[in-house]
């Protein structure tokens, strides 16, 4: 009964919901992200210790934050794939992995460029940086494994297992700056404490994090729609959607 429900109901339902959400996600994402970046670049006061190089934080923290939270979402979807065999969860993992790869790369790149004027080096093998590099390889591995297996169902299962194995890395990234006291500074935002920065710095940072979240939502919807169209092309509703236009 549940199998039947998921097979027939979900992809079509999601496709419609995504189509309705996407304009709002895109507009909200661009608006918040631009507000955060312009505020952070031009109006926030400069850091007393790091000078103006700290302005990289307004893209470094959002990309690093999203890179990890996208992986956590993928892990949740992997559990759903393995336990309930829900098609949509597998579609999510597959569609979102390249986005995670780009975000992780961006956080590493901006971190390296920020490190040069601040620490005097592009790269150190410190715990935070190394665990982030492993995250990059995990995303690469997920994409490669998915492409290597032709059968859709076995690919979904193998990818889910890989994603779940890799999830150990997330708490390591999270706590690396507290367990090993090396070059990377501690987190700017903590759930339990007030931010250690003045409001003129953390409000734009929060805006750009939220903006990037919405933009990620848009990208996820768009890429999932693509995947659903390809997988469901034999169904009546996809045919109607493609031939008539708006289904």
């Amino acid at each position, binding site marked *: 009964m549940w199998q039947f429900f998921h097979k027939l109901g979900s992809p079509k339902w999601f496709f419609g919901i995504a189509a309705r959400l996407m304009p709002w996600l895109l507009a909200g994402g661009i608006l918040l992200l631009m507000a955060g970046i312009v505020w952070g670049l031009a109006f926030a006061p400069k850091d007393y210790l790091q000078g*103006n*190089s700290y302005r990289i934080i307004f893209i470094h923290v959002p990309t690093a934050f999203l890179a990890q939270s996208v992986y956590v979402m993928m892990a949740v979807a992997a559990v759903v794939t393995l336990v309930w065999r829900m098609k949509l969860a597998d579609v999510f993992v597959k569609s979102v992995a390249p986005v995670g790869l780009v975000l992780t790369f*961006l956080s590493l790149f901006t971190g390296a460029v920020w490190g*040069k004027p601040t620490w005097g080096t592009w790269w150190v093998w410190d715990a935070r940086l190394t665990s982030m590099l492993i995250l990059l390889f995990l995303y690469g591995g997920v994409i490669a494994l998915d492409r290597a297996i032709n059968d859709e169902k076995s690919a979904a299962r193998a990818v889910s297992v890989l994603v779940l194995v890799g999830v150990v890395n997330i708490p390591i990234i999270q706590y690396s700056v507290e367990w090993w006291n090396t070059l990377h500074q501690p987190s700017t935002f903590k759930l339990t404490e007030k931010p250690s920065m003045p409001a003129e710095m953390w409000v734009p940072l929060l805006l750009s994090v939220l903006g990037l979240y919405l933009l990620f939502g848009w990208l996820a919807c768009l890429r999932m729609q693509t995947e659903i*169209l390809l997988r469901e092309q034999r169904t009546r509703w*996809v045919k109607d959607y*493609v031939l008539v236009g708006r289904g």
Partner: protein
Amino acid sequence: MAFDSFSAFMVMEGHGPYVWSCYAAFFLLMIGLMVWSLRRRKAAIEACRRGYELQADRQDPQAASASAASFTRVKVSQD
């Protein structure tokens, strides 16, 4: 504004190249990702449409032969 002039904004007291290269990479990759994803969906819709048209041709052989019949053999003198 945290800066006195536009040139001060670009230079950022010597940190300009670092800050601007980060933002350039960010916008380049994010916009690239968005454009690539949009094109992929468009390509998927096109691929589906082509598939349906092929299917329709196969299901309707009369239509296919009708279109084939428009290629008539014309005798051309070889001199």
